[in-house]
């Protein structure tokens, strides 16, 4: 036995004290964890049951062939993915979704920003106009679609009354493969720009005035001040709108369901409509789940890329 083997000697009282403090700290930490768990539990459980579990279950279903009535799904591995990814109809759907989303995102941002500048001017009655512009955003999609279906109708629609006096023949909007998608874009823009305008307006009103004034004193014209100062300062707003609009538009369903049902032919079949069609019309749970996972991955990638790109540009404070 050497001295080295001896335990470190501490005063008995000290040891007790240290152990006490340890225990105390541990107990306190445990209690804090307990409290933490207690506080997050309600939300966590709800999110787990209604968000995470369906995603996991959906991922499982995408590996099966199941018609929703049969007693058991059949495990088919990645067959749904290979079949979907090599299907020309899926490629077309993806392309339509991208065009549709792109037009709506760009349109919402540009028109929304223009409206925001307009609403920011000290004009008479702007409160009422702001409310009217925002109102469509809170209307139900099905109601909006029903109203627009009437307006677009070539026989008795409102647009006919507007277009015909100009000497032009109104297009048969929803019954033409060339016009159905632009028609849907118009409806979604009408529904969305009010929201974009409102958010931009809030951004505009929160901009620091000093930069703008300094530039004005230095002789920068309105356009330069917009382009070089206001727009960059609004970047966080643009970023927020970009992400929410992309996600929202990718998942757009209500207006499509009521107005075109994905048609004519497949002219307005977006990813979200084809998920519904595969799942709830054809009862192909596996293939619908596969499409959902693909949509999930696309949105995840798009959002991540946007976040990375914007991270570098967005911050001005």
């Amino acid at each position, binding site marked *: 036995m050497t001295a080295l083997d001896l335990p470190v000697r501490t005063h008995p009282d000290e040891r007790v004290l240290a152990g006490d403090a340890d225990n105390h700290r541990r107990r306190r930490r445990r209690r804090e964890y307990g409290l933490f768990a207690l506080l997050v539990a309600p939300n966590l459980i709800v999110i787990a049951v209604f968000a995470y579990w369906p995603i996991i*279950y959906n991922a*499982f279903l995408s*590996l*099966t062939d199941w*018609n*929703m*009535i*049969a*007693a*058991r*799904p059949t*495990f088919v*591995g990645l067959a749904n993915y290979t079949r979907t990814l090599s299907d020309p109809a899926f490629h077309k759907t993806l392309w339509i979704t991208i065009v549709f989303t792109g037009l709506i995102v760009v349109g919402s941002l540009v028109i929304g920003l223009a409206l925001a500048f307009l609403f920011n001017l000290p004009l008479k009655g702007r409160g009422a106009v702001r409310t009217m512009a925002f109102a469509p955003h809170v209307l139900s999609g099905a109601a909006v679609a029903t109203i627009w*279906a009437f307006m677009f*109708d070539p*026989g*008795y629609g409102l647009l006919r009354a507007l277009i015909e006096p100009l000497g032009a023949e109104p297009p*048969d909007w*929803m*019954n*033409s*493969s060339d016009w159905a998608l632009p028609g849907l874009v118009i409806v979604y823009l009408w529904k969305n720009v009010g929201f974009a305008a409102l958010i931009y307006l809030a951004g505009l009103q929160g901009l620091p005035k000093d930069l703008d004034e300094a530039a004005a004193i230095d002789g920068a014209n309105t356009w330069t001040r917009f382009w070089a100062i206001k727009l960059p300062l609004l970047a966080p707003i643009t970023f927020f709108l970009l992400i929410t609009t992309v996600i929202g538009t990718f998942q757009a369903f209500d207006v499509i369901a009521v107005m075109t*049902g*994905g*048609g*004519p*032919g*497949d*002219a307005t079949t977006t990813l979200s409509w084809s998920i519904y*069609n595969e799942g*709830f*019309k*054809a*009862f*192909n749970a596996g293939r619908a789940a596969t499409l959902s996972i693909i949509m999930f991955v696309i949105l995840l990638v798009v959002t991540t890329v946007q976040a990375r790109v914007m991270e570098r540009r967005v911050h001005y404070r």
Partner: protein
Amino acid sequence: MTMRRRMFLGLAAGTTLAGCGYRSVDAEYSQPPGAVPAKYGNRVRVVFWTSYGGANGKAVDKLVAKFNDSQQDVYVEVQFQGSYDDVAQKVAAALVAKQAPDLAILSDVTWERFFLNDALEPLNSYFTDGFGPAVFQQKLFGEYVVKGQSWAVPFARSTPILYYNKDAFAKAGLPDRAPRTWSELRSWGPELSKVQSGGRSLRTLALAKVDGDWQFQGNVWQFGGAYSKGLDVTIDQDGAVAAGEWQRQMVHVDKLAYMAHSPSTDFANGLVAMMQESTGGLKSMTSKAKFPVGAGFIPSEVASGLATGGGGIGMMRNISTERKQAAATFLTFLALPENSAFWTTQTGYLPVVNAARENPDLKKLIAEQPNFGVAIAQLTNARQQDAIRLYGRNANVAIYTGLQQIYADNTAVKKVFGSVAKRLEAIGDEVKRLYEEKVL
């Protein structure tokens, strides 16, 4: 090694997840909730999911109220669930959630999927003298019989009929009858175009944007073709292509026909002279239209023949014996001739019970309004649809989206039906195994 591991993971995931759901074929499931009025308190409750709204929904309610007051053991509760598609979706969803309505309205293209997957109760053992093969109209009853066993009974069965606007026909100087052939219909177009309606010239024929493939099933036969022989797809062959080509020319060459979001709305508002629509809409169209409505046989061309359609009633398998017996009592009640006749007089649907045709109320109605006799007389030409549309899930959607391309974009019919045929073949492959096992 990796294969094994993957399989193991798959199986493990599968069994864990399977623990949470899926239907067990012979389990007894609970009933969808609802309230039973106190006066029917101690009876066996039967939940009946339907897809009839408006005037037709009221007629269902009346029949059910009459049943509930006619005896003391069973209380039937009607739960309206939306369209035929909606009912099918909700039944499937309910079964996964281990719940089952007792009876459900299933359409010409949805009952098969429930039958193929063992979700329906076979009905032969419930048949009596007043409820069975001898009672029902043979053709309509037979469509639900597979290998001698009945899987549903006919209820709101229909055929398309040709609706025409009598005022418009008179203004155009045409005879007061439906055209006998598609060629005759086409030759009447120029006269009808001279009639003005809503600030523009009247159109001859409305073609349905959605679900028009049901009417087109008959049109294909009338031009000598078929959607399929068994599950072998033939929509890309001569007769079917000719039918599509006739419609394409009507829309894009003659500009007499067009694709309508809702043919019946356009027709009721006098925007179009004719449409092919279910006889089940006859009653509501008669009251909606502001002009006298004419009805006649669907025109023929090289052949006659049209598709039956509409809803039957299926009994779910996953319910208790007591509920099954109670549900059968209600089905027996519906098979009484006076109830079948009542349903026909209130809606326009076919009388599915033979003896209903002798019912004085129905006879009187047909004498006063011959339109109500059209589908009955036309039934001799009607037959069950081609197997691919009945058994192929979403075959109907594949066909009507193809038709949309012809109507909307003037796409060559041969090309459209070529790609529709490919989709139908893939759809057919999905059900082939079950179809061969259970139907053939």
